[in-house]
Structure formats: C-alpha cells, structure tokens
C-alpha cells in the first residue's frame, strides 16, 4: 500500500514538473531601459551553428523572393548558420502580425520592416537595437551605406539598414491598349485623357484598372491625393477633415469613387484580393495597374512569356501635379532585435546576416532601377525587358516623394483604407472617412 502511494505521488510530481518544462530560459529579452549587452568588442564567436529567426516581406509572391532565397542560401553556406525564415507578403495583416509578435515576446532575431511610423511601436518599446550601438561593437557595420540615407526614427537614432528603395508607378499592358487603339501614356498624361482611355477600354470589354479596393487601395489613394495637391504637400497630414489637407484627402477619395462609379475597376474589386486583380492584369484582361518596383520580378517569374506586353508608364495627373511625379524612396530596412542582440551567439549571426544581405553584391541582385543608400551604387547584372522599361520611364521622372500613409499611425491607416470601399459605394462620405481615420492618428 505504501509502495502504491509512493508510486502515485511520484507520477503526480513528474506530471507537475513536466508542466514547468517550457518555462526555462530568458522570457523575452532584458529590460530595454538597461544597458544593451556587455558592450565589449570581444564578443565570443558561436561554437556551433546558430539558428536565426528572420522575418521579411519577401514572402508569398513578392517579386524579390527568388533573390532573397538565393541570398539567404549564400549566407547559410558561408557561415554554417541556419535561417528559420518566416517571411510574409507585405500587407496590413502582415504588419499587424509583426507588431503583435513583438508585443507578445515572439519577435524574430532579424526583421526586414518599414522604417516609417509603422516601426515606431517597436522602436519606442526598445525592442530593436540602434545602429550606433551595433557600430560600437562592430565598427564596419553598414559601412557601405551612406549614413545620410539611413531612416531616422522619432528619437533621432538610426535603427534599420536600408535595402533597395522602391518606386510606385503605372504598369501598362500594351497588348490590351493596342487592341483598344489607346496609346501608351507618356510623362504628360492627363486625368482627362485617362478617363477617356478607360471608357474606350471598358467599351472594348476589358477592365481598365486592375485594383482590389478591398485589399490594396493604397497606391490609388496616394496618387489621387497628390492629384489634388502638389508633390511638396504630399506628406502633410490633416488635423481634421475640414482643413485644407483634409479636403485634399476627401477629394482624392472622391476621385476613386468616381472611377468606381464609372465601372473602371474590376467588377469584383470589393471582394477580390490583390493577387486576383494583378492576375487579371497579367493575363491581359486589364490595362492599368499601379504597383511598385517589387512587382517587376513577379511578372518575370509568373508571366515570363508575356513580359514584352508590360511597360512602366505614368499615373495620370491633374491640377498642379505632373504625371512625371511619382511615389518612391527607401521605406524598409533590416532591424536587429534586442532579443537577438542580448544573445551573444545570435548577436554575431544577426550582424553577419544583415551585413550579408546589405552587401553591394547581394543588393545588386535585388536592385534594378530603385534608389539605394549604397556608397558605390548597385551593379545589376542585366535588365530584363520590364526592368529596362522601368529604367526608361524613370529617366523622365521629375520628382519623387514618400507615401503619406507611412507618416500616420497603423490604426489611422487601417481605418482609412478599410473605409475606401464604403466611400465608393456611398455608404460613407469621403469627409467622414477622413475624419474617422484622423481621429485614430
């Protein structure tokens, strides 16, 4: 009897201990207000290969996915470390997931993320390490970059090492335009010409504009508000819907509504995903698509046989804006998290990873026509037809500015873009949508 009791107690104790098995180790990084790490230059090299958790936006159908995978493999072969990649496709859900991971202590070791207002929550929480601190340990960190082009956070420090920049402009399916008898837009393309062309294209049975207003109205929003203002005013944020900037935003939303009411977006623009509408463009069923430089390699990988059907053109302009003015800049970069920095083994691996991914050689595989912060510039190996078309279009660009949506809070942006579909269907006025968004900024 005593033996049975002892045996039962032993089993219960083992079960209790097994509950605590996962509780060992650092719960998620040290106090961010304390000094970050030992601060010595003699960081011991890891004895064994390190597994590095990395999150980037080069997931899904990103145009740079292949370049990213090749670069990661190069790093793994050179260092023996292993990269646990959890990259995703850059959209609002992905951004929310990244921020949530930081808030719940499950952040990666290296993060490739936006350097705008989107990154402020993780910067202010002390969850990422600033460049100056890294350089105190690794003086040659990002030495190939122009420091003046590193993004500056609200506290005046640099945190991210930029990768390639981006531009946003109009992709055009020349086969569709040719079939409709519409000329490829030039740098003097006007809004009125655009409306006339869209009607012609629609009458021919094609979809004029490939855009998912449900998922990605972002690009049309940026250019439409620029069309109601000027390039230099693009980054102004309204204090309320009634001021001049608020009215500019409302006018931009109303322009999108006008395009929707005229039937220039896909029939299912309010229920389609971005992937579906881009597919529409790629399959030669839509004429115009506003997207970014990251989309070039997507067409190379997925529509290689019809690559010659696409060119980069100009978003139509009205008012004081010129069609040769575009959205662009460097908006993303590599962050090293405090979590990795406080782990001596991962610190070394993370620094080597970022240095590798932002080296001149690797950057040249990502960059074609985008701006970079590289001191020596990038040396892309050779441009495919679409990249050449982008280079040709960019030669006529007269002004570039960053997107204003990067300057507002994630909550404001989520509210604004979620309400675009309500504005176009008349469920909500543009002014109400602007007011609702600004209230969350």
């Amino acid at each position, binding site marked *: 009897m005593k033996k049975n009791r002892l045996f039962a107690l032993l089993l219960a104790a083992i079960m209790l201990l097994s509950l605590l098995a996962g509780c060992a180790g650092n719960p998620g990084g040290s106090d961010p207000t304390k000094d970050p790490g030992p601060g010595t230059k003699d960081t011991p090299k890891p004895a064994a290969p390190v597994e590095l958790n990395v999150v980037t936006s080069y997931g899904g159908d990103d145009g740079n996915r292949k370049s990213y995978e090749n670069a990661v493999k190069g790093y793994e072969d050179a260092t023996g470390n292993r990269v646990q990649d959890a990259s995703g496709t850059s959209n609002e859900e992905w951004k929310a997931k990244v921020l949530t991971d930081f808030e719940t202590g499950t952040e990666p070791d290296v993060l490739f993320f936006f350097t705008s207002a989107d990154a402020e929550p993780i910067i202010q929480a002390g969850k990422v390490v600033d460049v100056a601190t890294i350089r105190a340990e690794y003086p040659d960190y990002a030495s190939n970059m122009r420091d003046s082009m590193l993004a500056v956070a609200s506290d005046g420090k640099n945190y991210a090492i930029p990768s390639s920049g981006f531009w946003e402009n109009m992709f055009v399916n020349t086969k569709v335009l040719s079939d409709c008898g519409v000329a490829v837009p030039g740098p003097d393309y006007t809004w009125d010409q655009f409306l006339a062309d869209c009607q012609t294209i629609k009458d021919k049975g094609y979809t004029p504009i490939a855009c998912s207003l449900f998922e990605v109205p972002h690009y049309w929003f940026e250019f439409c508000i620029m069309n109601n203002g000027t390039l230099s005013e693009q980054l102004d944020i309204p204090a309320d819907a009634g001021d001049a900037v608020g009215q500019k935003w409302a006018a931009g939303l109303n322009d999108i509504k006008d395009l929707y009411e005229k039937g220039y977006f896909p029939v299912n623009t*309010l229920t389609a995903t971005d992937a579906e509408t881009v597919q529409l463009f790629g399959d030669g069923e839509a004429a115009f698509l506003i997207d970014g430089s990251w989309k070039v390699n997507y067409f190379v990988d997925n529509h290689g046989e019809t690559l010659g059907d696409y060119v980069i053109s100009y978003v139509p302009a009205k008012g004081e804006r010129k069609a040769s003015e575009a959205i662009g800049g460097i908006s993303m970069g590599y962050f090293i998290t405090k979590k990795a920095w406080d782990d001596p083994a991962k610190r070394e691996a993370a620094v080597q990873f970022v240095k590798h991914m932002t080296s001149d050689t690797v950057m040249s595989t990502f960059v074609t026509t985008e701006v970079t912060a590289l001191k020596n510039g990038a040396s892309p190996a050779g441009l495919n037809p679409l990249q050449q078309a982008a280079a040709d279009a960019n030669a006529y660009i007269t002004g570039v500015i960053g997107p204003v949506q990067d300057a507002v809070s994630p909550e404001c942006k989520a509210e604004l873009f979620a309400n675009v579909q309500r504005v176009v269907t008349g469920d909500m006025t543009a002014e109400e949508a602007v007011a609702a968004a600004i209230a969350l900024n």
Partner: protein
Amino acid sequence: MNSSSTLYKKKGPLVVFLVPAFLFLVLYLYYPFVQNVINSFSDITGLGAPAQGLNDPWWANYATLFTDPKLRTALGNTVILTVCTVVFQVGVALILALLVDSIRVGAQLFRTLYFFPIVISATALGLMFNLIFLYNGGMLNQLFSNLGIIEKNIDWKDTSHFMVTMFTPVMWQYVGFYFVILVTGLNNIPQDLYEAAALDGCVGLSKVRYVTLPLLRNVLCTCLVLAVTGALKVFDLPWVMFGAGMPQDQGWLTGTYMYDQTFNRGNVDYGSAIAMLIVVLGVVLSNVANRVFKPRNDL
C-alpha cells in the same frame, strides 16, 4: 483485506492525479479568462502593451457593444450561422447517421468518408473553397458557364451571395463530427428494442420516430449544445475566405470581428469585451438549448 481493493475507496490518490490538470486549467484557462474580464474595462492600445488605467467611463466598451453597427452585423450573421448549423450540420449528420446505421455493407467506409473533412486544416479548406468560388476562372463559374447556366461570372463573395459562400464550407466541414457522435449514439441503442418494436409493426420511419429519436435525445442535445457554442466561435474558414468583413463590412462574424479588433486594429480592450459577449451568449444559448431539448436521465 487486499490493499488494491481499498485503493478506490481512498480519494487521496485521485486528488493527487487531478491536481496537475487542474493547475494547468487554472494557468491557461481561468487566469486568462479573469485577465480578459479585467482587460475589457481597461484602456489598452496594443497587444502586450500595459493598460493605461481604466476606460473613462469604465463600462465604455460594453456601451459600445450596443451601438457598434459592425458588431450588430456580426451578431446577426452569427445567429443565422447558428440556425444553419443546427438545421444543416446536425440535421444532415442525423440523416446520414440513420442511413449508415441501417446498412451493413460499407458502413465503416462511409464513416471514414464523412469524417474525413474534419481532419483537413481549415486554412487548407478555405484556400480550396476560394479556388472553387473564384470570380475569374473559379470552378463553379467555369462549370456554370460551360453548361450555359450563366453568361457572366457570378461574384460569389458579393453582398447577394456571400452568406451561402461563407456558410457552405463551414457546414460541410463539421457534418462529419456530429455524424460520428450520432452514429455512436445509435450503436448504443439495444437491438432488443428494435426487435420488440418490429414485433409490434413499428418499422421504417415509425421506428425512427418512436424508438430511435427518443433514445437518441441526450446525444442530440449534446450535439445541439456543441453546435450552438461552436457557431459562436467560428473563425478560421470565414477568415481565410473573406478576411475583414468582406463584403463591405457585411460578412462579419463574432469570432472574426473580435480577431480584427484585437489583432488588426490594436483595440485590445474592445476585443476583450467582444470575447466576453461571446462567452455570455454561449452560456445563455447552451442553457436554452438544454432546457428546450431537456436531456432525460430515465432513458
């Protein structure tokens, strides 16, 4: 007296074995639940961020529950989903169980086939149904178009069709779950009763009505409670297929709206209040289901 025969008279060892599971529940269920209640009264602006005191007024989130139009939509859709779950999931499962119970050859095969959808990940199912309902080149539109049933593609996710498109995969996935429970219940009905009933001429549908269903009452009640509470929590399939409120904020369910508020909008305290609402509704509806269908202990 043999020591092993006295083992079950002593409660001590049983308590010792129950304690670890209880501690686990306290840590991972009851503590988060209590914390969630506290969070619903607090001012929290991001997941993992500390509360900035209580809301002003402290019941602000619960007041918003009554005025939020999207939540009203979510509740309405969830009620419809609950009714559909009861009628179609449990109803179809009952019919299939009765049919399978009445055959000898192939009964095991059908059990496996009908149970199979449950083992497939809801995300994979969502992606599959997305392809079926795709506007351009989706299976349904292609089929209907080739058969001449439609001339223009149907947008299966628009305001006219989204409810059927959202509920059909959810119904399809969990019919097998209730089917297995009901088949097990049917197997527990003694054959003697059927033989005795047959002697009195009670066969076919009469047998089902007067013998099978009354004896299956308790199992049916369990299935209905599970269906009702399950409908309140549905998230994965609708989220993969429809995302945030598609179409035009008319496609919200309580589960998807709670997720969107908490994880996409960072409105953690309001998300907690919605979670509390789901719990309250679950308890109320399951109690109602229990009272209406009155499980009996004399069967």
